[in-house]
């Protein structure tokens, strides 16, 4: 089976009556995702998507009435932190936040709260999750995916699409693709998702798509060498990028030389990970590992 989502997922969409939320809700529904509810405060009682999905005023009511067990958030950045907390407070175990532009200070507070609850947050600034052909939660274009046994975890959006497209061209399918989000503070890191893939019978191999900045790829490399039995292919974007505009001396001291493309690639290679030079090289490398 896929990880995190499947055909049993009862999905709620926060911000379903907004432009983006509504458009992508339609896409998810066409894909076959089991959308049970939408939430927009003040629009409770409406029905959307051709009368197929009821809208509620609050997550609490939506959960009570529909048994939603996952949510995807499309609300504007000023309200998104509150939306995450509302979902966590209502006991939803999987929260996927697509919204980008949430202030770091807000996310620090949100994370401090939800890390103590039994909640899995993906994102923010994530393209979401797709588990072909069972369910799609987020904005990953469904046309570039097909069912298979390769797990993908990524910090990027379109770069991930590029990789999936290249895989599909080569006839390779995906078990689940998880976009963990491109923001500095995110709910779940590479390691958590890798460990899900490690335990997923459908997944044979894993692709990790990282980029410069932070230390998450380095820590993922340590995790892979200690805990992963399944082969992993890596790709790190940003080798040609100018040195990061560092966060003063403090940023430099925290990173301590870590965070560059070189450092990440080296760490992954040391962990026995094959690292591709560009996205379209991945389908060529995959059969060899």
């Amino acid at each position, binding site marked *: 089976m896929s990880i995190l989502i499947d055909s049993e997922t009862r999905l709620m969409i926060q911000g379903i009556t907004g432009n*983006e939320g509504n458009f992508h809700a339609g896409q998810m529904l066409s894909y076959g995702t089991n959308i049970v509810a939408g939430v927009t405060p003040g629009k409770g009682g409406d029905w959307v998507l051709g009368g197929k999905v009821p809208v509620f005023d609050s997550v609490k009511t939506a959960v009570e009435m529909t048994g939603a067990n996952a949510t995807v958030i499309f609300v504007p*950045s*000023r309200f998104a932190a509150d939306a995450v907390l509302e979902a966590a407070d209502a006991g939803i175990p999987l929260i996927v936040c697509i919204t980008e532009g*949430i*202030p*770091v*200070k*807000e*996310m*620090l*507070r949100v*994370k*401090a*709260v939800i*890390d103590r609850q039994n909640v899995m947050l993906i994102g923010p600034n994530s*393209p979401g999750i797709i588990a072909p052909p069972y369910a799609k939660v987020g904005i*990953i*274009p469904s*046309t*570039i995916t097909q069912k298979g046994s390769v797990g993908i975890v*990524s*910090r*990027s*959006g*379109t*770069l*991930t*699409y*590029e990789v999936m*497209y*290249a895989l599909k061209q080569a006839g390779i399918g995906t078990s689940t693709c998880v976009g963990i989000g*491109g923001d*500095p*503070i995110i709910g779940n890191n590479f390691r958590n998702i890798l460990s899900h893939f490690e335990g997923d019978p459908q997944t044979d191999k894993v692709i990790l*798509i990282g*980029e*410069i900045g*932070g230390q998450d790829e380095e*820590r993922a490399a340590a995790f892979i060498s200690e805990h992963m039995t399944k082969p992993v292919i890596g*790709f790190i*974007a*940003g*080798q*040609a*990028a*100018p040195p990061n505009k560092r*966060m*003063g*001396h*403090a*940023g*430099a*001291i*925290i990173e*301590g*030389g870590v965070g560059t493309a070189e450092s990440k690639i080296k760490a992954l290679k040391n962990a026995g990970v094959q690292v591709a*030079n*560009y*996205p*379209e090289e991945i389908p060529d490398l995959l059969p060899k590992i």
Partner: protein
Amino acid sequence: MRLHEYQSKDIFSNYQIPIPRGRLASTPEEAKLITEEINGPVVLKAQVLVGGRGKAGGIRLVKSPDEAEDVASKILGERIKDIPVRRLLIEEAVSIQQEIYFGMTVDREKGETLLIASAEGGVDIEEIARLSPEKIFRVNINPLLGLRDFQARNLATDIEIPRELWRSFIALSRSLYNVYTDLDATLAEINPLVITTGKRLVALDGKIIIDDNALFRHPELLDRRDITIESPQESEARKFCLSYIKLDGNIGCLVNGAGLAMATMDIIQHKGGQPANFLDIGGGASSEKVAAALRIMLTDKQVKTILINIFGGITRCDEVALGIQQTLADFDTNIPFVIRLVGTNEAEGKQILADSNLITADSLEEAAEKAVSLSQELSA
């Protein structure tokens, strides 16, 4: 958004963090006047947002108002690392006994704020951190609880601040933390924080970076944005909310998504070319935004070829195509465009561009190879 030293110090001062007496000068005459007011040796500090300003001659100690005028007239209008110096901060010279490093920023891994301090501050702090990591002390702050006095006191003990200054150091820590949180900063740094020979703590330099995503909460800071030093390309990019960084190569890149933009630059380099810029048009860009992005690249004289790599998701290929069509109509340019469009409304986009004189590619690799070989031909 990074604040200037003088802006950071203004804020420090509002939060009772001691700074040297001083004011901003835009002319040599003002520099002289301020030095007269201070009535003693002063330091002239060029207000440019680049590192290594001191080593580049942007910080000068002078002894008299006349000397201040003279030195100011030399520095003002010069360029430091290509940035023109338009303003000088004139401050009383402080007699220094010890230079401390003190800063705070986001600890991405722990999801907390991290305070960092060292008894040996100053310009070489990164070198110290690398060679003698035991001299660097760190305290993690629970974002829900905030900085507690005992944490600041522990840090004071760690970096061996004299006891008689503990109270001042704790108050200053609290203030800097308040600056950091009140302003939605991702960095607040005092380097050096000096102990004067008169046993006072004084912030000799200050650096604050504001979280761009939180700027909407701080309109007063937006008003202070320093746009005088931007290039026309940067200013255009900011106007259209394009993420743009100029580089030294000759292949202009227009891509949707930061990760894909970097990967596109990487493959150009991998194939032997040099990207002229990083440019991310973001998600769901309009044709106007695409046209603006192309304008920026076409006005960069180093650009010999343009590579457009679009993977449509939220972004629609037909909208991008319209932006390209418009640009081609507006500009009479010889610069070749290599285009690769995939994803949402790909067919419609290709249709729009069917009659244009463009080089198309099906894969990113093919696009990169074509762009690189064109750029090499044109530079030859």
